[in-house]
C-alpha cells in the first residue's frame, strides 16, 4: 500500500533562517505531488505541484520554492523565512489527475 512521509512534524525557526521540508511517497511510481499551506482555521492553499521529476509548477509567488530531485521525493524550501510563512504545511500525492489526494501528517511551522 502507498504511504506518505512528511517531516518534521513541528518546527520553530527564526525570521531570516532557511527552510527545508521533505516529503516522500512509498508504494507508487510517478505520483503527482503537491505542497499546500493551511493558515490557522482556514482552508488549504496550493503552493506547488509536480507531475514528474524536475517539473514544478508554482501557484503562489512568494519566497518559497519546491524541488523534486527524485520520483517520490518533494522538497519545500526557503532561503529566508518571513513571519508570514508560519502555518501548517501539507504534502500530498495523487495517482493521476482528477482523483483524490492523500495527505501527509503535516508540518507546523512557526516563524519567530
Amino acid at each position, binding site marked *: 500500500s502507498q504511504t506518505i512521509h512528511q517531516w518534521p512534524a513541528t518546527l520553530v525557526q527564526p525570521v531570516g533562517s532557511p527552510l527545508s521540508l521533505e516529503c516522500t511517497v512509498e508504494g507508487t511510481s510517478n505520483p*503527482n505531488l503537491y505542497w*499546500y499551506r493551511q493558515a490557522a*482555521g*482556514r*482552508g*488549504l*492553499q*496550493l503552493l506547488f*505541484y509536480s*507531475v514528474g521529476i524536475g517539473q514544478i509548477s508554482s*501557484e503562489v509567488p512568494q519566497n518559497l520554492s519546491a524541488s523534486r530531485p527524485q520520483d517520490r521525493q518533494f522538497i519545500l524550501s526557503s532561503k529566508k523565512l518571513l513571519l508570514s510563512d508560519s502555518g501548517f504545511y*501539507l504534502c500530498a500525492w*495523487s495517482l493521476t*489527475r*482528477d*482523483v*483524490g*489526494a*492523500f*495527505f*501527509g*501528517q*503535516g508540518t507546523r511551522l512557526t516563524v519567530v
Partner: protein
Amino acid sequence: GQQVMQIPQYQHVQEGEDFTTYCNSSTTLSNIQWYKQRPGGHPVFLIQLVKSGEVKKQKRLTFQFGEAKKNSSLHITATQTTDVGTYFCAGGGSWGKLQFGAGTQVVVTP
C-alpha cells in the same frame, strides 16, 4: 478564476441530529472531492463525485453532485461525536489543481 465556496463556516450540532454542508463553485467542475480534517490532524480523502447528479453514500454520510456540476452537498444523519472536524470540498478544474473551499467546522454537542 475558479472559486469554491462552502457554507456554513461553522456548524454546531446536537448529537443525533442531521446536518448538511454545501459547496458551490463559480465554474463547472470536472469532479468534486470531500475531505475530513480532525482537530490537529491532516485532511483525509473521503470521496469523489464525477457524474452530474451523482449521489454516493458512506454509512451515515450522503454526498451529492449537482446536475450542473457546480455545487455539491454533504449530509450527515444521526451525528456522532466522531463526526467532529472540518469538512472540505475541493473542486477539480484544470489539470489536478484542486480548489479547496474554506471548510465547514463541525462541533457536536453530546
